[in-house]
């Protein structure tokens, strides 16, 4: 099994582009930028944080060919590793930018994949977010000493902090799975019947479990108590319909030392759209 630990992906030396260095320097002089909406900006301030700057990381990755057996359902480990590494590179660069700014964490992280016509079999992986820092000087860095990342919106971040939990990091697990094509006899045999397709079921079940287990492993490495906001995405990218990538994403959290301050909510019955 390939080593999919974040440390393995992050050991390659990398220099941020010169433009990034200039931009981050400007941000350190007191200007902040953020792609938070006004609502989110105000709520991040309510939570006791101040936005430092818009941070991003990207990596253009070429996904090589991996041979697969037409008739077997299997994980395509090389592709899994490639997708994982590419995203990790983008995330690491974003975290590096956040570290340059002295941030405690990054909120509103978005992971995007872009395809360009001139890059066959290659895709650009981008991670965006807004770096924030606690105003009272407490450090919110995670167990690995790095700024936390989370894909929570400003509203969700505020609500989470009110419940006494603190985000540790965006955790993800990925699995690229090839689904066997059915043999002609099998297909003909079940034509017209209501029947479960066991090899599809088994394959997709296994693939999802792999993705989620890897995500949970990442969370344990951060000594997290739990994961919130788990999303399971399925993409075929450019591989056709029998190869699917399952991506499980979530934010790992731990219980903080602060008391729970979430006030009792007012229940309302909203009478308009």
């Amino acid at each position: 099994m390939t080593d999919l630990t974040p440390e393995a992906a992050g050991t390659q030396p990398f220099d941020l582009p010169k433009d990034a260095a200039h931009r981050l320097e400007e941000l350190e002089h007191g200007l902040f930028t953020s792609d938070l909406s006004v609502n989110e900006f105000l709520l991040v301030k309510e939570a006791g944080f101040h936005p430092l700057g818009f941070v991003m990381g990207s990596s253009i990755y070429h996904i090589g060919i991996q041979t697969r057996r037409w008739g077997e359902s299997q994980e395509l480990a090389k592709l899994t590793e490639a997708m994982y590494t590419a995203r990790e590179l983008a995330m690491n660069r974003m975290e590096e930018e956040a570290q340059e700014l002295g941030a405690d964490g990054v909120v509103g992280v978005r992971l995007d994949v872009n395809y360009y016509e001139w890059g066959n079999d290659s895709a650009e992986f981008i991670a965006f977010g807004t770096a924030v820092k606690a105003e009272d000087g407490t450090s919110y860095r995670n167990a690995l000493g790095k700024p936390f990342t989370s894909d929570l919106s400003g509203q969700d971040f505020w609500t989470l902090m009110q419940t006494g939990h603190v985000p540790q990091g965006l955790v993800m697990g990925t699995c690229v799975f090839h689904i066997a094509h059915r043999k002609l006899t099998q297909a003909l045999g079940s034509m017209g019947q209501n029947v479960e397709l066991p090899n599809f079921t088994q394959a997709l079940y296994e693939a999802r479990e792999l993705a989620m287990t890897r995500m949970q492993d990442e969370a344990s490495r951060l000594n997290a108590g739990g994961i919130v906001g788990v999303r399971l995405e399925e993409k075929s990218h450019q591989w056709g319909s029998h190869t699917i990538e399952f991506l499980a994403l979530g934010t790992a959290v731990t219980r903080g030392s602060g008391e729970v301050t979430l006030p009792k909510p007012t229940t309302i019955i909203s009478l308009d759209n």
Partner: protein
Amino acid sequence: MTDVAGPDDPAAVAGTDGDLPEAAVRRLESSAFSSGLTVPDFAACLEIGLEPVALVQGFCVMQWGWYGPGSGFMRGMSPYVAGPQNAGAYSETYRCPHGYVSVEHRMWGQNLEQPWVEDAWAQGYGTAYRRMIEEATDHGAHGVIGVVDRVASVADTGTTEFHFLGTAVTVEGGPPPAGGVPWSTYLAGQRLTKSIEAGFMPVAVVAALASVRIWAYCMTEYLMEGQMGWGMPGGPQLVDQVSKAHMAARQLARKHVRGQLAGDELHGARIDVVGRELSQGDEVIDCTLRGNRVRRFKDFDPVPLPRPTVRLG
């Protein structure tokens, strides 16, 4: 310049008898009403005391040609001749800085407002609007709400059609408007009631077109085709003629609409701009501004700032 009817302009309404198709007369005579309101809008209007009476529409197709009767050409309007026909219209001239280059070199250019196009548009819009109001008046309505207007051009044939659709309503227990001409508004439902409660009564739907023609001179032609700019001092070159024409079109549309307001306010304004490139930097810019003309009938204290909330779930 424009002859769009308003409730305090009864003279404009006279003389439109017998303009409606026969089918319209038959439909309007039936007692069941139809209405273009959505269910929530319908319910909200009933709550505030507006009774829907009929679905009304107005339609008009205009053609304006360059050389036919009534066209600018026949009326002696020419871009090259200043005269009473285009007095007061916007125009700006540009002269070539190069000196004589060749016969094809455009030594002269002009941005020109086209009042004949604007008049024709206003006539079409006004006629369609008046027909809709006439259908509403026939039903004894006080106003028309939820107006939807559509202006569609068929470029090849040079025709433009104007279509209005709205729901005619009466105000329960209220007096008819001055001159018996119904008021109108694009709004309906909760948005309309909020506007009325805030102290604004709808008067009419107003719109105006401003049409500016760009006759490009040499610099504009070259800049729009990227023929200049390499190594020019001062960096990127602003295409002054085209930028000014666009600004003028929008300013003129506002000016024409303001001329119809007579001191009332315009709310919910919308600007639509269509630019047609003709060739070699020449362009026609048509800018339409539409909105609700409203009149303040009472003072209204500001609503207190609402409390911000965060929803769970």
